[in-house]
């Protein structure tokens, strides 16, 4: 009996165990965090929780916190580093139980549950006092819920197509700008024995990125957002049009085989080895690709090609943010930190290390060619900027959607059944 019951309450532990395995190196940080929580924060002590466990974000935050300490020597900063995946589940626990003074998260719908539950503190005063509505104006929309501003954004990055420039040149393929050229490029690559696009859908979200772009290009930003808000049926002909475009790629053998077995990192391998030529990804893919030995001569970036010329080009550029939990103990210093984080020079520096784009319009963009390309592309975007499938769509819809996309990519013939299933989920989620 005891064993069986233990199974039930073990799930809570399993959850913890799961995040431990993936992130061995930050385990100590997570453990440290749990002990730190118990000691009440004294005045002048600032506790920051982040999920910036990958090398570049980690270095960026180290520098950020050092810089803040140098300017505020009287504030003692405690930084708890969580693993990236594990953080997504632990944030819920620490926001309710033992809140830090600052925690990083994401803009848009992704912060909605915490805002609705009253777990984040509105920071309108910080924005007002430091003129952030001016300097961070571009992200004001995605930071506002119910007329209040819920955090400070510090970075964003473009999505698009990263490709093997050398392979394209070798086979005489020009950078595709529209759908026909894109399909032709893929056909040529396939002829040469190269899979056009690599992807790893084991953790689902990568498929969400592909859907986002196909839908944004087929139906446009407004439709994409309406679908996210549950205003359009998933069985709508316009969704089917998006899926049919996707099916064209699937039928033409655009994606690597067995992608459901790989994570996004594992899917980098075929691209590095020259077995695949493109990757629909965020800019964070550049660092591991370079680390794996690809030079800037081999690696390029282009905007996702036009599908429907009547639709204004919208892009995907997720924003990362920092928030003050409602249960924070030292909100005063936390606001100081947010003000520091919003400064142009600080954002320039942190994004230089991150290899991403600063939000502050007074910041300088690193002279990295991918950053420059992304900056130029996003500055000229007039169709709208989407956050990402799982940030624009509510969690439940996103999960069901991405699972459906994964299935669709392997079994395109099940399209109608998948869309009907998603429609069923939509009717439940948005009721």
């Amino acid at each position, binding site marked *: *009996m*005891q*064993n*069986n*019951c*233990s*199974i*039930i*309450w*073990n*799930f*809570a532990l*399993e*959850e913890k*165990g*799961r995040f431990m*395995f993936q992130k061995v190196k930050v385990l100590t940080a997570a453990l440290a965090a749990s002990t730190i929580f118990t000691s009440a924060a004294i005045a002048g002590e600032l506790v920051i929780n982040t999920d910036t466990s990958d090398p570049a974000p980690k270095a960026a935050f180290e520098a950020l916190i050092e810089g803040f300490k140098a300017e505020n020597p009287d504030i003692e900063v405690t930084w708890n580093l969580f693993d990236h*995946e594990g953080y*997504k*589940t632990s944030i*819920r626990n620490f926001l*309710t139980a033992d809140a830090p003074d600052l925690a990083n998260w994401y803009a848009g719908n992704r912060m909605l*549950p*915490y805002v*609705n*539950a009253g*777990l984040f503190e509105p920071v309108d005063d910080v924005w007002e006092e430091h003129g952030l509505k001016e300097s961070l104006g571009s992200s004001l929309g995605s930071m506002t819920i119910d007329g209040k501003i819920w955090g400070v954004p510090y970075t964003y990055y473009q999505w698009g197509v990263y490709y093997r420039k050398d392979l394209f040149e070798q086979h005489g393929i020009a950078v595709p700008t529209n759908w026909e050229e894109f399909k032709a490029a893929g056909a040529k690559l396939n002829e040469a024995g190269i899979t056009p696009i690599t992807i790893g*859908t*084991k*953790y*689902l979200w990568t498929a969400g990125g592909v859907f986002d772009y196909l839908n944004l290009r087929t139906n446009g930003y407004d439709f994409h957002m309406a679908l996210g808000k549950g205003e359009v049926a998933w069985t709508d002909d316009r969704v089917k049009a998006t899926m049919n475009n996707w099916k064209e790629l699937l039928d033409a053998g655009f994606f690597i*085989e*067995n*992608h*459901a*077995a790989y994570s996004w990192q594992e899917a980098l391998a075929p691209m590095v080895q020259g077995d695949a030529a493109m990757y629909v990804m965020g800019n964070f893919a550049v660092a591991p690709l370079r680390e794996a030995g690809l030079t800037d001569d081999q690696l390029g970036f282009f905007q996702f090609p036009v599908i429907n010329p009547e639709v204004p080009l919208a892009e995907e550029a997720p924003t990362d943010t920092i928030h003050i939990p409602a249960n924070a103990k030292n909100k005063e210093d936390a606001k100081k930190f947010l003000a520091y984080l919003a400064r142009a020079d600080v954002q320039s520096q942190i994004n230089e290390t991150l290899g991403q784009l600063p939000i502050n319009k007074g910041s300088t963009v690193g002279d990295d060619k991918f950053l420059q390309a992304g900056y130029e592309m996003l500055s000229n975007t007039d169709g709208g900027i989407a956050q990402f499938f*799982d940030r624009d769509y509510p*969690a*439940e819809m*996103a*999960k069901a959607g991405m*699972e*459906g996309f*994964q*299935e669709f990519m*392997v079994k395109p013939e099940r399209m109608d059944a998948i869309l009907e*299933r998603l429609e069923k989920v939509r009717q*439940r989620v948005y009721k």
Partner: protein
Amino acid sequence: MTSPTVPNADAPTSRGWWKENQQRLAPWLFLAPGIFMFLVYVIIPIFQSINISFYDWDGLGEATWVGTGNYVELMDDDAFYTSLKNNVIWLVLYMLAIPMGLFVALFLNQTVRGIRIYKSLFFFPFVISQVVVGLVFAWFYDPSYGLLNIALGWFGIDPIAVLADERYVTYGIIAAGLWPQTAYCMILYLTGLNAVDPEQIEAARLDNAKGVKMLWYVILPQLRPATFIAIVVTVIGALRSFDLISIMTDGGPWGSSRVLAFYMYEQAFSEYGFRMGYGAAIAVVLFLIMMVYIVGFLWKMYRDEKGR
């Protein structure tokens, strides 16, 4: 007749209430910490889970009463039936660990130089973490570089992406789970074999019993306690199959390797979870399934106790 040596039987005041009731109270006092923990961490949470399953709750905000709404939805949820089916497959196939463990134990139950090393090596998979087992098997199944597909290649068979194919994925994970579970059953049988009465074997030999007959009629009946424990731990192992699924496939592809335990975790706690009520409803169903087994287990215990 004077009897000064007979102790005064009616002097309760001098012995005190405690001494009087010591025999009756002591067991309860010793049990108290256990009962307390069991109540707080097992019994009460069961009722809490059942209670939550009647609500729609995101774990943060207000919970709204939906009655049996979660269960009605469950009945119309394909993912639930997939998980249920996989649970049954797990329960059935995981039982293979018992004969496999018995076989290995019989094989290792001999006195050869260095047999302890062999025993340790066979026991090794049970010692390492399930997480490591999962990773090792995930690499083993890797469609491009995995040993399995290299080996299949020798026979001219095309690579099979075991973990990305809805047809094979559950069996692939179970195979990974059988590796440590077999080791566990093996250890149980090895200790059991130590307790086999040599005189009975002697007697059976005299009666010309050999091989399979000897095993079936003489050895196995004496291993019944070991078999019983092996069944118990294997059923538990099958029902709590969570780590391997989480590591090897994360429930995929498109949720086809989920079991009830994993589905519950996904609905309630995972990144896109936030559905505590629905998760609790799945937990209740899982609990009811386990109840069947628990009742059977208790009944057997009761019968054995009585039979003594």
